């Protein structure tokens, strides 16, 4: 069910990411203001955008789960948030490295962009413990869906609040005027963003396929155990959805 199109997606991810990185180092010019260090931009910003987009996607799947009760939507929501958290760690670490090189500090607490992203990240860091704390699968899925919707709605609100706040040091990349990047830099950024988006979808598909295989295996074990009159099989508590 989830494995369809995984191979072409994987190939597209590899081609796009390698292509994007090649463009970063061999095509895009050095920034006039920041110089070579600005190359981190092509990694840091797509990571952050993909992570935030994934959080919102998790909320959308949460809405779909609550609407029709399909457990596959719960799984999709869980996986989208799980992968977004990984990309979020990447965005935080690469941003911190860039901050140290550019501003001389690993972290600037006065900067709303940084702190707001950290708040969103920490909010979603509660998602898995929340799921793990609920044993009943139905209740777990429902509570997680509500969490993903509320937190997902918080992401664009947070983004807007940061746009309205005064920026101290962090630049505004996506402005209404389209930013001030020259064409070759903009093209490199867009290819990087596309590569990261495709990588996100590919990783989600990997995770979904792996989870589905585990679930099918568990169901098969349960059927065999039932044949042997061994109705009891230890399932164990898990943050991830256990069945479709």
């Amino acid at each position, binding site marked *: 069910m989830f494995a369809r199109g995984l191979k072409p997606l994987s190939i597209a991810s590899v081609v796009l990411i390698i292509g994007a990185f090649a463009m970063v180092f061999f095509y895009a010019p050095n920034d006039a203001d920041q110089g070579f260090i600005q190359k*981190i931009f092509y990694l840091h910003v797509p990571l952050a955008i993909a992570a935030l987009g994934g959080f919102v996607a998790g909320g959308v799947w949460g809405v779909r789960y609550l609407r029709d009760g399909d457990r596959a939507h719960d799984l999709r929501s869980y996986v989208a948030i799980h992968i977004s958290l*990984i990309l979020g760690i990447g965005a935080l670490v690469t941003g911190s*490295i860039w901050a140290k090189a550019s501003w*001389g500090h690993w972290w600037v607490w006065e900067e709303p962009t940084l702190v707001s992203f950290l708040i969103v990240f920490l909010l979603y860091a509660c998602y898995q413990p929340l799921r793990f704390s609920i044993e009943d699968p139905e209740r777990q899925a429902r509570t997680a869906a509500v969490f993903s919707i509320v937190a997902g709605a918080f992401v664009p609100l947070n983004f807007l609040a940061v746009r309205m706040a005064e920026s101290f040091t962090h630049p505004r990349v996506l402005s209404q005027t389209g930013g001030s990047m020259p064409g070759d830099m903009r093209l490199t950024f867009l290819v990087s963003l596309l590569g990261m988006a495709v990588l996100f979808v590919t990783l989600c598909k990997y995770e979904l396929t792996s989870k589905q295989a585990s679930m099918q295996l568990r169901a098969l074990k349960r059927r*065999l155990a039932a044949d042997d009159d061994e109705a009891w099989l230890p399932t164990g508590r898990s943050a991830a959805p256990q069945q479709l």
Partner: protein
Amino acid sequence: MPALPLDDAGPYVAAAYLVFLALLLIYVAIMAGKLVRIARELGELTELVERRQQARAEDAEEETVRQ
């Protein structure tokens, strides 16, 4: 702040891209672990089904001999 010279900026840029690579590699390693577990459990289940089929075949053979 003025732009860092290439010698100073290089390690930071390399570190950022290495972080990304490390995240991907850690993810691949975790997925590999999951794949190994799935393969092992699948092997156990296959063995169980084969044993069961063998036992059924032996039972059927004994039944035929008894008749």
